[in-house]
């Protein structure tokens, strides 16, 4: 066990996958910023109230799931990488639900027609969701790769994973 690559692999036996875990936590951070940003919307109808409520509920589920993934992937559990990919796809899908619909819609508030989500707010919201999704995808990739490398290394050593 003298070459650098083997030592690097062997290190994983005792160190956490902090990069993948950190990326999952970063995706939570971007999601929280998105979550705060949507409150600036001009919600003037029950339809957007419901959409925002649903977004808040999904957000709670996302926060919990992403945090669990962060903990799981930290310990090289490959299954959590697949959950992270699913969560990332979910973040991308959300773009087309609330921000896109709200950006295209107008509502009447105090007899004035206003856009539910202004362009600047829309751009920010989309950016946060994309960043959150990208973090999850990269984290999942790193987690998956390292988990497989560790598994192969342990098998080569004859140690149970």
């Amino acid at each position, binding site marked *: 066990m003298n070459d*650098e690559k083997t*030592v*690097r692999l*062997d*290190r994983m*036996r*005792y*160190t956490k996958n902090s990069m993948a875990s950190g990326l999952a936590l970063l995706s939570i951070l971007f999601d929280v910023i998105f979550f705060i940003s949507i409150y600036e919307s001009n919600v003037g109808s029950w339809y957007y109230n419901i959409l925002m409520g649903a977004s808040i509920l999904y957000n709670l589920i996302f926060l919990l799931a992403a945090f669990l993934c962060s903990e799981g992937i930290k310990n090289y559990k490959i299954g959590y990488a697949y959950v992270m990919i699913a969560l990332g796809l979910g973040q991308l899908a959300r773009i087309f639900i609330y921000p896109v619909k709200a950006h295209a819609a107008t509502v009447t508030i105090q007899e004035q027609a206003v856009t539910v989500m202004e362009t600047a707010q829309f751009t920010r919201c989309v950016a946060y969701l994309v960043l959150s999704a990208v973090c999850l995808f990269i984290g999942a990739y790193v987690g998956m790769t390292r988990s497989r490398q560790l598994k192969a290394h342990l098998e080569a050593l004859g140690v149970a994973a």
Partner: protein
Amino acid sequence: MAQLNVQHVDKIYDNNVQAVFDFNLDVKDGELIVLVGPSGCGKSTTLRMIAGLEDISAGHLLLDGKDITQTPAKDRDMAMVFQNYALYGHMTIYENMAFSLTLRKENPNVIHKKVLAAAEILGLTSQLNKKPSQLSGGQRQRVAMGRSIVRNPKVFLFDEPLSNLDAKLRGATRREILLLHKRLQATMLYVTHDQTEALTLADRIVCMSMGHVQQVGTPLELYDDPANRFVASFIGLPPMNFFDATVREGFLEGCGFKVRLSEEEKGILLPYAGKEIELGVRPEDVQEGTETALNVFSNENLGMNTLVHGHIGDNNRISAKLRGWYDYKAGDNVNVAFARKHFFDKASGEAIRKGGKA
């Protein structure tokens, strides 16, 4: 590995209390020095000054000839093992051992190799993924030692590392430290108040009292030829018996005893003829004989030996460690003799040795 020279070191606190007086010590490369003494004698303070955790009020500290008196602790290339382990509870054993090297931004692969090597030496390889709370006291102390080993320091400093362990574990860990020293051949300074640890571990012992060095020597020298009454009473278990005695022609006379002197002893005590001195006799040097009678007041069977406590004369208390199993009752008289005697100047407490030096 390193040579350490402590030259005329004093420690004076801000409130003018002096904890260490003129401490001098030359530690050879690869030597294991044990600083021993009762609580408050300045041994830990001395170690902390060497580590750089306390300022040195006066004197110099040299490591491999280089003056490090003013060098900050982190740059001294010394590693310290504390009594309370000082492990990070939220980190695994691996992370604890790697921590100091990570702070130094060493290559992670190099850190990994060093941690595995240290874990191998200490038998901790299977524990590396555990947290400190999952380990026993002895294992935690080994982790603390491992954390020092990975740094490959010039000097290892141990501050009462076994005090938190139970008696059985203490014995086992003590042997591990000894093996570790033999294996690493490192320069080590070890502080303890336990004279058994001092005698079993040390290449040389520094015996301290009230901030002063009382004697520096090998364990045998301190046991066999103590420099003064303090060292004689501190080293050895049970402690040495002391009796006031007057030097007469050819014998020593005290309250309840009269012991004959050998030709060599007569020579040593010649300058004290007619004067009062202190006679010291180790319990293991009290044997069955005809010199004096020991009036028993308690009897402790230790298996191979029997520890007999009593008095000779009116109020000279004495402990005797007799070989074998005896069942003396309180009030029994046992005839004993002193196989080996130590003599101390009554006024100064210094040992009276061959050549008339007190």
